[in-house]
């Protein structure tokens, strides 16, 4: 699960990381008074206005602007609030800016990068830091990997003081700023740990001209498996930032991801669902979605699955691929027959059922009278569905 910058910074602040602070505005009417509040609360006369959307690349897209005085802050706020911001992560349709974050402006001496995530190779947490902050860190990693310092943390021991010192020294911090950097690194790890984050990133972490170490921007993603014990975090979800159909599918307990093709598919199991998409592509079609119906595959799941898939108007045919293990294929077949006849579908449906009671299922489908195209193997199913979709 993703959250906004202002929410991420709130988490950092609670855990002891100094942040470039500000307030959120959702209505144009509040812009003027909020700027006054920022000026008073943080004792500043210059501001930064930042669009709050989940996608990255906001600055380049024109969603983050420095404002040297109140008048320009008002003008910029009006411009950004309500705009459709296009970045390399939003896609060409862009994302509506529903909230802006008006913050104090800081005098920046130097920018750094620091992030914590799980290193899957070692099954340990890894802290990555670089004195090349503020830029696209993926570029730094690709071109000059030696400029990224890494420290691995034993999950049972936690982040040790010597590791924080090592990072701060190698980043080049000195004197009082060094002490602040050590504190920030420890606080960041604490924030990562207590929230069950999957990524905690400060980019950039800045050293101000006054010698203070402050988080200018922050990104947190969270492990969805842990949300049951992170109620506060779960409440930060902003469904406006997600695809509406995916949110709806989620409510039906279906795992759906929209893609750009025209062949819809409904499969049990994530691996088989991906493999089904792959074979559709190999047969010359383009998958319209990923949809894992899980272990259920009963009338209701199949019906909801069809509704979700067919809400995408580019879908020209649907492939149902179910491998019955514990699930009996004859039951799945009855579910499909009922769903198809009740929903009055406008596109052809190819059905392939394998595993437990597949033979019974096949004759049920053949004798049902509903217009389903049966297929025996994965190969045959993919060939048939691509054939009818084009």
């Amino acid at each position, binding site marked *: 699960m993703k959250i906004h910058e202002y929410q991420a910074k709130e988490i950092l602040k609670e855990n002891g990381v100094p942040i470039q602070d500000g307030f959120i505005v959702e209505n144009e009417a509040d812009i003027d008074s909020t700027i006054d509040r920022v000026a008073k609360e943080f004792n500043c006369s210059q501001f930064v206005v930042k669009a709050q959307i989940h996608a990255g690349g906001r600055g380049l897209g024109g969603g983050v602007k420095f404002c040297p005085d109140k008048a320009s802050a008002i003008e910029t706020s009006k411009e950004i609030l309500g705009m459709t911001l296009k970045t390399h992560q939003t896609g060409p349709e862009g994302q509506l800016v529903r909230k802006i974050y008006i913050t104090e402006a800081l005098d920046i001496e130097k920018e750094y990068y620091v992030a914590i995530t799980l290193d899957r190779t070692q*099954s340990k947490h890894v802290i990555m830091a670089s004195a090349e902050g503020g830029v696209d860190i993926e570029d730094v990693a690709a071109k000059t990997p030696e400029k990224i310092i890494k420290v691995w943390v*034993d999950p049972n021991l936690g982040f040790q003081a010597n590791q924080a010192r090592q990072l701060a020294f190698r980043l080049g911090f000195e004197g009082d700023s060094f002490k602040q950097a050590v504190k920030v690194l420890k606080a960041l790890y604490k924030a990562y740990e207590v929230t069950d984050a999957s990524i905690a990133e400060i980019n950039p972490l800045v050293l101000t001209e006054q010698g203070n170490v402050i988080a200018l921007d922050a990104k947190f993603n969270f492990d969805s498996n*842990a949300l049951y014990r992170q109620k506060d975090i779960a409440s930060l979800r902003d469904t406006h930032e997600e695809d509406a159909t995916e949110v709806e599918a989620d409510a039906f307990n279906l795992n759906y991801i929209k893609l750009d093709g025209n062949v819809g598919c409904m499969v049990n199991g994530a691996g088989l669902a*991906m493999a089904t998409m792959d074979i559709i592509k190999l047969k010359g079609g383009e998958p319209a979605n*990923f949809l894992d119906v899980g272990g259920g595959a009963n009338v209701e799941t199949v019906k909801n699955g069809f509704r979700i898939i067919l809400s995408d108007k580019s879908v020209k045919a649907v492939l149902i691929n179910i491998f019955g293990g*514990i699930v009996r294929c004859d039951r799945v077949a009855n579910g499909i027959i009922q769903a198809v006849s009740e929903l009055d579908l406008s596109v052809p449906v190819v059905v392939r059922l394998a*595993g437990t009671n597949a033979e019974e299922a096949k004759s049920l489908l053949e004798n049902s009278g509903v217009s389903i195209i049966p297929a025996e193997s994965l190969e045959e199913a993919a060939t048939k569905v691509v054939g009818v979709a084009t």
Partner: protein
Amino acid sequence: MSILVNKDSKIIVQGITGSEGSFHAEQCLAYGNNIVGGVTPGKGGQKALDSKVPVFNTCFEARQEVGANVSLIFVPPAFAADAILEAADAGIELVVCITEGIPVSDMAKVYTYLESTNTRLIGPNCPGLLTPDEAKVGIMPGFIAKKGSVGVISKSGTLTYEAVHQLCQVGLGQTTCVGIGGDPVIGTKMAELLELFENDPETEAIVMIGEIGGSMEIEAAQYAKEKVTKPVIGFIAGQTAPPGRRMGHAGAIVSGADESAAAKKAIMADCGIIVVDSPADIGMTVKKALATVTV
């Protein structure tokens, strides 16, 4: 022969009185497994599965009383990490955790702790193990498999069934099928299983089914290049998956260039693995590979 489990495995089921646990324990028993007991805290002394097996309060008791050496876990996600640790502390050699949805940070702690023990973990979020005609330790449907000479390693559930089904259709049985799970942190990685299958005299070929995300397939491919003499047939699911989107499994997300299907397939092929493009060609490709070896 087989790897990890066989007819002599003494299996206990943690969470045997829950609905998932009792259903699947019954299926395992029906397959002919040696289920020697179950563990549910507070229900020690009772009997489970129609009074066929004893229930213990702790894994320690189950180890002492009935000599359990394999534990199959169906405990809910919030308690599953603790259940794995309990089995390890009781000295159980092999733990198979089926539970889906365990927090990743819990698993990172468990994984690191297990490094200091003699316990091997399979999973979590996996279908478990199946040694045809001998032991079914998990939720794989037993009837789809048959005894034979192919070892199967897979991150997925139903895609494993698909592969096993294709193998049987071309007349090939399996030594052991291992579902390792699709989470970011899992107990046993692909390379370790390649080693076990390489050392198993009855395994003649190995099928390795991976997914986008992580670098486990690449590590396994590099291991195979150096140490595996048997043919390895590989497939990577998610060739059409867009970067940055999680495809069902918590671990199936392309977050770097090396984690894409294309990158993994290229490295696997470089390491001498026979890479299958279509998921429909797995069975046939193994058959061809074995024919070449025999000639």
